[in-house]
């Protein structure tokens, strides 16, 4: 392993991502947590660039760091979070979950720590968006169309659930 530029970039990005995650777990203010997670999301986008997935990286920034985080912030504001502190949720459950996470991580790590498949040169970074587009509109047309249904359902469903018709009726 040499200290190439790529390696340094990876280390930096990984550090940011993990710090963001750890802050999520340790901060006390809800808004801060969300903001810390934005770091993680952006860092992940950087990771995608390293992995020659420029389009996914762009989508990541747009959707996660943009859309999802924003609606989460909206959600926090709309629901006027009344307590910012994080009191103890059952201590035992925390410990058990922590142990579970450790065990799970260890077991999976055993499976990946030595994961090396002989690398073949790829052309993923060349016209990345076009490759994706081609695949999406030919081979994956069915799931693609279904995703549109899924998004529509989510849209309609969210409106139905979130809209307060009683209030509206009162206003009119």
């Amino acid at each position, binding site marked *: 392993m040499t200290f190439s530029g*790529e*390696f340094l970039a990876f280390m930096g990005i990984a550090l940011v991502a*993990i710090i963001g995650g750890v802050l999520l777990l340790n901060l006390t203010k809800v808004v801060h947590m969300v903001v810390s997670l934005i770091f993680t999301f952006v860092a*992940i986008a950087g990771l995608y660039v390293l992995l020659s997935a420029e389009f996914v990286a762009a989508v990541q920034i747009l959707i996660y760091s943009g859309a999802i985080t924003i609606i989460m912030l909206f959600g926090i504001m709309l629901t006027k979070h009344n307590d910012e502190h994080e009191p103890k949720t059952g201590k035992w459950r925390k410990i058990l979950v922590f142990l579970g996470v450790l065990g799970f991580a260890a077991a999976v790590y055993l499976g990946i720590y030595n994961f090396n498949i002989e690398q073949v040169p790829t052309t993923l970074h060349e016209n990345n968006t076009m490759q994706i587009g081609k*695949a*999406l509109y030919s081979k994956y047309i069915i799931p693609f169309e279904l995703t549109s249904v899924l998004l529509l359902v989510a849209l309609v469903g969210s409106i139905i659930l979130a809209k307060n018709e009683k209030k509206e009726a009162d206003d009119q």
Partner: protein
Amino acid sequence: MSSVPASAFLALALILFCIGLYGALTKRNTVIVLISIELMLNAVNINLVTFSKYGMAPSITGQIFALFAISVAAAEAAVGLAVLISLYRARKTVNIDEMDTLKN
């Protein structure tokens, strides 16, 4: 070929997945729980994109899969938040441990 081995990416994904999982199972604010789930999905996407470059028979498929996962995640987040808002209207709380009218 590359100076960063695939396992490094995978390990990072694993760590983020675990952080997300831990957050989803222990955080008290429902919004944070939802966002922790998003973090888990993100970790999965790192896996997919990594495999699309360094996995067996590299291909664009992994990136496509990741894109699908992202859109699904967005849909879930939206619906989750909508449900939360309608619950908040009735219950005036976003604390997940106060959602316990349904139990044995």
